[in-house]
């Protein structure tokens, strides 16, 4: 599907995990385009996933969730591996953007979340805030890195490298409204086939006001390492409580100091 990319419109990914085959073409394409060298090879001895996590070198990560029963008496039966190509969610209410003290994290003209490398100073406040463990510090530059949703490609009218490379169209790119419609159709189709566990994550505004990179999941979000709607909370929720606690302590502290230091004549 050729998409005309126009500034001022919202774009994103719809990742349909029900048709992900775990080929990791998205990881390779991402590294290729963004010139990410990747981490040193490691053997995690945990499924077929040796990438492990999203970080400064892995802006796409195909998660393998092992659901193979210990005693597979029922071969297949739809329970084997869940695979999901994870990525920055480009949240509408982005925790990283909220706390960034330098203004390095901005929302682009395509409504995606982007870290300006020449502004970031590596304070790591965004890492403490991102609930999806997406952002990491690049050891060479000392700045925070994550998926840019191929900002440079979008500016050139090209779709992101991962979506372009995905052989099963598990990763779909396009205007957000169109993707949401496509997701609704796909979910209805699956549910009509009896796949009742299928659910959309980030399609509506229950998770961080809605995600530009949202998913169709085949199990509950926690299974994939994603906070559910109850746990998807912004860091700034603690501003009022934190400052109030400090204020009450300050008042009590000053009061205690006045009691201790007040003038009581010559001693």
């Amino acid at each position, binding site marked *: 599907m050729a998409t005309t990319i126009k500034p001022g419109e919202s774009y994103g990914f719809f990742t349909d995990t029900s048709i992900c085959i775990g080929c990791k073409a998205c990881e390779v394409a991402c590294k290729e385009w963004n010139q990410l060298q990747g981490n040193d090879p490691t053997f995690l001895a945990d499924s077929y996933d040796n990438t492990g996590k999203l970080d400064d070198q892995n802006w796409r990560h195909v998660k393998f969730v092992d659901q193979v029963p210990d005693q597979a008496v029922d071969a297949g039966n739809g329970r084997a591996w869940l695979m999901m190509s994870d990525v920055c969610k480009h949240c509408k209410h982005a925790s990283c953007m909220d706390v960034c003290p330098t203004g390095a994290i901005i929302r682009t003209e395509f409504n995606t979340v982007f870290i300006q490398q020449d502004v970031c100073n590596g304070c790591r*406040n965004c890492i403490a805030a991102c609930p999806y463990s997406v952002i990491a510090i690049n050891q060479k530059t000392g700045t925070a890195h994550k998926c840019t949703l191929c900002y440079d490609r979008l500016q050139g009218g090209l779709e992101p490298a991962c979506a372009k490379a995905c052989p099963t169209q598990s990763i779909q790119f396009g205007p957000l409204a169109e993707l949401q419609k496509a997701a609704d159709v796909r979910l209805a189709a699956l549910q009509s086939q009896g796949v009742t566990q299928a659910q959309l994550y980030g399609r509506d505004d229950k998770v961080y006001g809605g995600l530009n990179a949202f998913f169709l999941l085949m199990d509950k979000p926690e299974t994939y390492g994603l906070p559910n709607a109850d746990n998807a909370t912004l860091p700034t929720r603690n501003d009022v409580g934190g400052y109030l*606690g400090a204020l009450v302590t300050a008042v009590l502290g000053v009061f205690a100091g006045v009691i201790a230091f007040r003038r009581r004549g010559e001693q």
Partner: protein
Amino acid sequence: MFLAAEHFVRAPQWQWYILGYFFFAGLTGGSYALATILRLVGHERDEGAARVGFYASFVTLLVCPLLLTADLGASWSRFWHMLIDVTPGDQGLNFKYWSPMSVGVWALLIFGLFATVSALEAFVLDRRSSTATGAPARPMGGVAGRAFNVAGGILALFVASYTGVLLSVSNQPVWSDTWVLGGLFLASGLSGSAALMALLTRFRPDAEFSLGRLHQSDAYFSTLELVLLAAFFFTIAVAGTAARTLPWLPLWVIALLGIASSLAAVRGQLRLGAGGGSGVVARAGVDTMVLSILILVGVFALRAAVIFSAQ
């Protein structure tokens, strides 16, 4: 109030530099606040201890920006990006009232002016005292001088406490599961500052007059800290993340020993006040030194335990 939280967040790897900054921010803010209270409500003979507080605040302040810039992943020269937004087409001052790190940087900068001016004033007063008879006139006396100290004191309380709020305003386990950290760091910072000032009175005979009351205030702050520590463990237990503190049990024990030392110091002071010869006074001096160091170690350990428990 808090959900049994599930966290999938990465640790920011805030380690020794940030721990050091949190420690010195507590001391610089706490010392200034205590010095201000001493000057405003204390006896005129408390002025010596107040000046000790202003000096302590200034010296501990100097370390803060060094530690903060050293911790930055990018070049230290980008520290000023916290203050000025250099985004092309969107240049201007950076101030996000909802981001404690942003507010804290500004608070530290402005508080730095107050701490520097107050330390300079103390220095001028000390110079005049050594050359003149009687109490020298304050360069910044009167209502304006008091207002200056009060404004600086308010900023000082903020600097000593916002570091805890900064941790809470995240999605990290433990830190974000409680509202207590700002208050806890402030109470602990005030306690440590009282201990630091008590320790420094050894080097300034005219400040020893205030020693008993510094210990007394320390006991109050430590009691407050103990209550907040209980609230901290209660809130993270409700959130289901209390188990993450267990590997750092030795640090929590040291923090508690620091609190116990504060209470022991005031007990010793009360005994001293009840009477004693020169031998008792000398012993009390040693006790003050040992207990003050234990209290300061406790202040450091508390912050280390909180920081490491989430990471």
